[in-house]
């Protein structure tokens, strides 16, 4: 459970109250949501820890995406409350990455302007927008020709642009909805490592919805396992292998044990009812 030095070093600046640093970042209380044919959430409570990457995993149709969509305000909840350090969503800068990058990016803007678009919405002057995008690109070490339009980029590059667009506002929380499921396997592996790098660089609280258990465990500090709907927390499984994790991580006993444990719980949920 040792925290790598880099985290401490790049952590929030001084004057930050220690109790806040360890307090949960997002508190979800009594969240309820039903669709005409099913109750998806019924008084769901959960705390999202600060500065961690958590994956949401569970049986098909249990409402993994619905959960982050409600937290991010894309889907209205029937009842309940989601607070970010006690503040409502409207006062929070957050990033959201869609599964379908093809439809989430703006094809009429070059990649660079796509990344800068959230800043434009915020009213940041053009020169400053340029600077901030350039800084982010340098920070992440991205090697894509950003003067190209999205349709000239590969799927992985497009999703990377989407992720940068989500990061450009320096969000305090980042949501990703199955971001790599439309990519081929080779690109998925590459993008996992890109995301891990982004996370290590920025330490942004990240919530990733995944349908791939290997990916969920590999990337996460915690895996949030959900039950069939109405979704409950089956277990919040910690996985604390040091970063950067690599291909070797996948064959380490700790990884295999965690994955097997999650799989067992998942199977039990799938076969229940």
């Amino acid at each position: 459970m040792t925290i790598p030095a880099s985290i401490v070093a790049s952590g929030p600046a001084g004057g930050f109250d220690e109790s806040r640093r360890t307090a949960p970042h997002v508190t979800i209380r009594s969240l309820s949501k039903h669709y005409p044919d099913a109750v998806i959430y019924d008084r769901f409570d959960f705390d999202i820890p600060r500065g961690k990457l958590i994956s949401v995993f569970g049986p098909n149709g249990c409402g993994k995406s619905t959960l982050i969509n409600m937290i991010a305000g894309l889907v209205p909840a029937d009842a309940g409350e989601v607070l970010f350090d006690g503040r409502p969503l409207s006062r929070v800068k957050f990033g959201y990455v869609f599964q379908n990058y093809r439809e989430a990016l703006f094809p009429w803007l070059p990649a660079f302007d796509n990344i800068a678009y959230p800043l434009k919405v915020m009213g940041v002057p053009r020169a400053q927008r340029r600077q901030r995008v350039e800084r982010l690109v340098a920070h992440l070490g991205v090697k894509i020709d950003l003067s190209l339009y999205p349709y000239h980029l590969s799927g992985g590059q497009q999703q990377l642009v989407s992720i940068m667009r989500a990061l450009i506002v320096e969000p305090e929380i980042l949501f990703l909805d199955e971001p790599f499921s439309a990519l081929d396997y080779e690109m998925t592996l590459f993008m996992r490592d890109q995301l891990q790098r982004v996370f290590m660089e920025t330490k942004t609280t990240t919530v990733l919805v995944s349908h791939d258990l290997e990916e969920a465990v590999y990337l996460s500090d915690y895996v949030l396992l959900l039950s069939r709907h109405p979704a409950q927390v089956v277990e919040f499984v910690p996985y604390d292998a040091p970063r950067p994790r690599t291909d070797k991580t996948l064959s380490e006993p700790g990884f295999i044990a965690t994955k097997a444990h999650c799989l067992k719980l998942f199977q039990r949920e799938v076969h229940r009812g």
Partner: protein
Amino acid sequence: MKTSNALLPLVGVAILLAVWSLATALKLVDPVLLPSPLATFRTLWESMLSGKLGVDFLKTVMRTISSTAIAAVIAIPLGILLGSSEKLYRSVEFLIDFFRSTPASAMFPLFLVLFGVGDRTKISVAAFGAALVILFNVAYGVMNARKTRLLAAKVMGASRIRVLFDVMLLESLPQTFVGLRNGVSLALVIIVVAEMFIGSTDGLGQRVFEAQQLFDMPGMYAAIFAAGALGYSLNLLFLLIERRFVHWAGR
């Protein structure tokens, strides 16, 4: 291989000209009804440059362009407005579909009463027909804006107005151009018909009709080809503009 493929469209043209030449050379068709290609194209060339055909051509171009422009100015903003609210569009959908299905030529007598004999009637009937086609396409373009893209803008904090201008408007552009191309084709059809029958003294329609009345067959074919070339060019023009401004369409 590449160049031979580029020449493929000319094959059909060559076949048509060959069959046509053969038919006139062998006198398979009465030469009075079907002049030779050479005679036809010579007439086309001469009357376009020096004769009245060039003037008529320009008249028809002006009328078609004016009616399409009027239609676009009215229909595009209205289409965006209607498309931005599905409820609003559904409430007028029947009216739009009904008048879109009504042959615009059936409106001539009404417009004659309203605007009298002259350019105003021709242009307004054509604008009426074209406007409905454009309106329908723009509204659908706006309504069918990709949900994910709208959500993406919303998630980034864009206001409704910003979403409308930054996303919906651009999302609807490919469909808007489909509307414009169909609209300009329809406007040309209506203008040419109007020129034939509504006390016209100029225009391609009048030219075709007059040549036929005078039994000037090369003149008639020349005018028909001029009208065909005009329709084709207008379509091509809009396609080129579309490719320039809507570079992402279909990608």
